[in-house]
C-alpha cells in the first residue's frame, strides 16, 4: 500500500485495526474525537465491535471484558478521561490482561483546556491507579510513529499481558502527515475465534477446566506472591523494552532530552544550533516506561565533551525526574517547559541552549 494522508488520531485508529484489534470502546473528549468517529465507521465494516459507552469508567471495563475474552481491545481518551480510566487500568494490570489505552494529552489540572500538553507523564509512567503496577508507555512524535507504535503496543500488550499506553498530545492527534500503512502477520480477531495463544481467555469451559480472570488475592501471602511475580515481570520489561532515538549525541556538549511532539520540535532547534556551530545532541525517549536509562549510561562512557543536559517538556518538569534519577548528579540537568496550552517553540529552545552554552 502506498502513502496516505491522515492525522495522528486516525493513524492510531487505523493502526489498531491493522494490528487485528476488533474491539473499541471510547467516550468522546477533545482532542481525540477523530478516533471514536473513525472506529464507528470502520469497525462495523470489518466485523468488529464499536461501543460508545456511558463513561470512561465503563469504556475501560468493557475493554477489560473483551480482553478477558481473548480479544485485542483498545480505548482512547484525553487527560480528564484518562484519569477516570485509572480504576480499570489498575484492575487490568492486576488481572494480567493485555489492553491498549491511548491518551491524547490536553492541558490540566482539572478541566484545563483542549490544547496540547505533556502533563500526564507521571500518571502514565508511575502507575496512575492504585497498587504496585506499571504501564508500558510509548510516545510517538510523528503521525507515522503514531501508527507504528500502535502496532507495537498490541504486540507488547499480548507478550507481557500488561496494559500499554500510547501517550500523545493534542498537536500530534490533530496534525496531518503522509504515512505508509503496513499490516502485521496476524489474523484479525473474530467472534468465533478461540485464541490459541491465549489459553487463559474466557471462552466457556468446553473440554477444559474453568478459566478465571481476577486480581483479587485475599489469603495471607497470596497478594504478596502475585506482586513479586509482577515485579519480576516488570524487571524483564525494563531489561528488554527500552526504546529511544538519539542523534548527534556522541560529540554533543549539550544533550536535549525531549519526547513526543517536544522531541520533534527539539530536533528543529538542534538543526538551527548546528548552523551556528553549536554541538547539541538529542535523546528522544520513545518508550517512557521503561525509561531508556541504558542509553544514558552508555553516553556517559562514550561522550567526553558533554557538559550539560537540558530537558524540554510541555509540563513543568515530569520526565525531568526520571532524567535526574538517571544522571544522578554526574552532569547538571537543566529544564525548560511550558504547560497550559503553550508549546515551547524552536526559538525558545535555541535561546535556552544559548543561555546554557
Amino acid at each position, binding site marked *: 500500500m502506498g502513502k496516505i494522508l491522515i492525522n495522528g488520531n486516525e493513524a492510531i485508529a487505523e493502526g489498531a485495526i491493522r494490528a487485528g484489534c476488533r474491539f473499541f470502546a471510547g467516550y468522546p473528549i477533545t482532542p481525540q474525537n477523530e478516533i471514536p468517529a473513525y472506529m464507528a465507521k470502520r469497525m462495523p465494516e470489518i466485523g468488529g465491535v464499536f461501543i460508545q459507552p456511558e463513561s470512561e*469508567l*465503563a469504556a475501560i*471495563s468493557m475493554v477489560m*471484558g473483551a480482553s*478477558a475474552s481473548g480479544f485485542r481491545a483498545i480505548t482512547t481518551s484525553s487527560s480528564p478521561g484518562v484519569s477516570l480510566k485509572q*480504576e480499570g487500568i489498575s484492575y487490568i494490570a492486576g488481572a494480567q490482561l493485555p489492553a491498549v489505552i491511548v491518551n491524547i494529552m490536553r492541558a490540566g489540572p482539572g478541566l484545563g483546556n483542549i490544547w496540547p500538553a505533556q502533563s500526564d507523564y507521571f500518571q502514565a509512567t508511575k502507575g496512575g491507579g492504585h497498587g504496585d503496577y506499571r504501564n508500558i508507555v510509548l510516545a510517538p512524535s510523528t503521525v507515522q510513529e503514531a501508527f507504528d507504535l500502535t502496532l507495537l503496543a498490541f504486540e507488547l500488550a499480548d507478550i507481557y499481558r500488561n496494559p500499554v499506553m500510547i501517550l500523545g498530545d493534542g498537536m500530534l492527534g490533530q496534525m496531518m502527515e503522509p504515512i505508509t500503512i503496513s499490516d502485521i502477520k496476524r489474523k484479525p480477531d473474530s*467472534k468465533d475465534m478461540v485464541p490459541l495463544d491465549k489459553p487463559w481467555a*474466557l471462552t466457556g469451559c468446553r473440554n477444559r477446566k474453568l*478459566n478465571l480472570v*481476577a486480581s483479587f488475592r485475599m489469603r495471607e501471602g497470596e497478594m504478596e506472591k502475585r506482586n513479586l511475580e509482577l515485579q519480576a515481570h516488570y524487571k524483564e520489561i525494563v531489561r528488554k523494552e527500552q526504546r529511544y532515538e538519539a542523534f548527534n549525541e556522541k560529540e554533543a556538549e549539550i544533550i536535549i532530552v525531549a519526547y513526543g511532539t517536544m522531541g520533534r520540535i527539539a530536533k528543529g532547534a538542534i538543526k538551527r544550533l548546528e548552523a551556528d556551530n553549536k554541538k547539541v545532541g538529542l535523546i528522544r525517549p520513545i518508550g517512557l516506561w521503561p525509561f531508556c536509562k541504558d542509553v544514558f549510561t552508555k553516553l556517559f562512557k562514550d561522550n567526553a565533551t558533554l557538559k550539560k543536559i537540558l530537558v524540554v517538556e510541555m509540563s513543568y518538569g515530569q520526565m525531568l525526574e526520571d532524567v535526574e534519577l538517571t544522571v544522578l548528579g554526574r552532569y547538571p540537568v537543566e529544564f525548560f517547559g511550558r504547560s497550559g496550552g503553550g508549546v515551547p517553540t524552536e526559538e525558545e529552545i535555541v535561546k535556552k541552549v544559548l543561555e546554557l552554552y
Partner: protein
Amino acid sequence: MEKIYNLPESLIDVSTHYCPGCGHGIVHRIICEVIDELNIRQKIIGVAPIGCAVIAYKYWDFDCCEAAHGRALAVATGIKRVRPANIVFTYQGDGDLAAIGCAETIHAANRGENLTTIFINNAIYGMTGGQMAPTTLLTQKTATTPAGRDAKLEGYPLKISELLAQLEGVAYIERTSTDSPKAVLITKKAIKEAFQNQIDGKGFSMVEVLSPCPTYWGLKPVDAVKWMREVMIKEFPLGRIK
C-alpha cells in the same frame, strides 16, 4: 434407591464463606441448577461483583471474570459483544448494581445488551460492615444510618427494577425472594427465564432477589426471614415487573 437431589455439576463442592442464614448460597446453587438444566455450563461466562459475593467464582465450576465495584455490566458487555455465542451473566449486590454501578446498569439495560443479571437485594452493605445501601429501608439502622435511614437526609429506598422496567431495551424484570421454599422455587423459575431469554436473543433480563443478611440486620436467621417477609417485601413487592 434413586438419588433425586444432587450437587449441580456447575457448583463446586466446598463450604462457602457466607454467614449463617445468608441468602447468597441459595441463589448460587439455583444459578448452577439452571445452568445445568439448560445445558450451558460450557458456554457460560460469569461476572462476579465487589461485595460479599466477590469470590462467587470460587463456588462455580465455569469461566468467570472479576469486575471493579459497579462495573460488572460494562465488563459483561465487553465479553458478550465479542463472544455472542457464549451465555454471559452478572451477579451483583445492591451497592454494586444500584449505587456505584447505577450508570453501568442503566446503560447496559438501555442498550438492550443480551445479558442476564442476578441482582441480590439485602438492603445493606455486607462485606464492608453493614453500611446503608441504596435499597436500605426507611428507619432501618445501619452503620452509617445509626438513627435509622431518614428520607430527608438519605432519600428513599431505590427501586432500581421499577426504574429499569421503563427502558425499551429491557426484555424481562422480576422481583423474587428467598423467604420460603416456595419463594426459592419461584426465584429459580425466574432465573431460568432470564437465562432462556439470553439464549433466545431477547435482550436484557434481570431478576432481583430479596435475600436476608441476618448478620447486619442484627437478627437471628429465622427472624431475618420473618423481617424480610413482613417488612422488606412490603417495600419491594414481588412479581414480574416487566
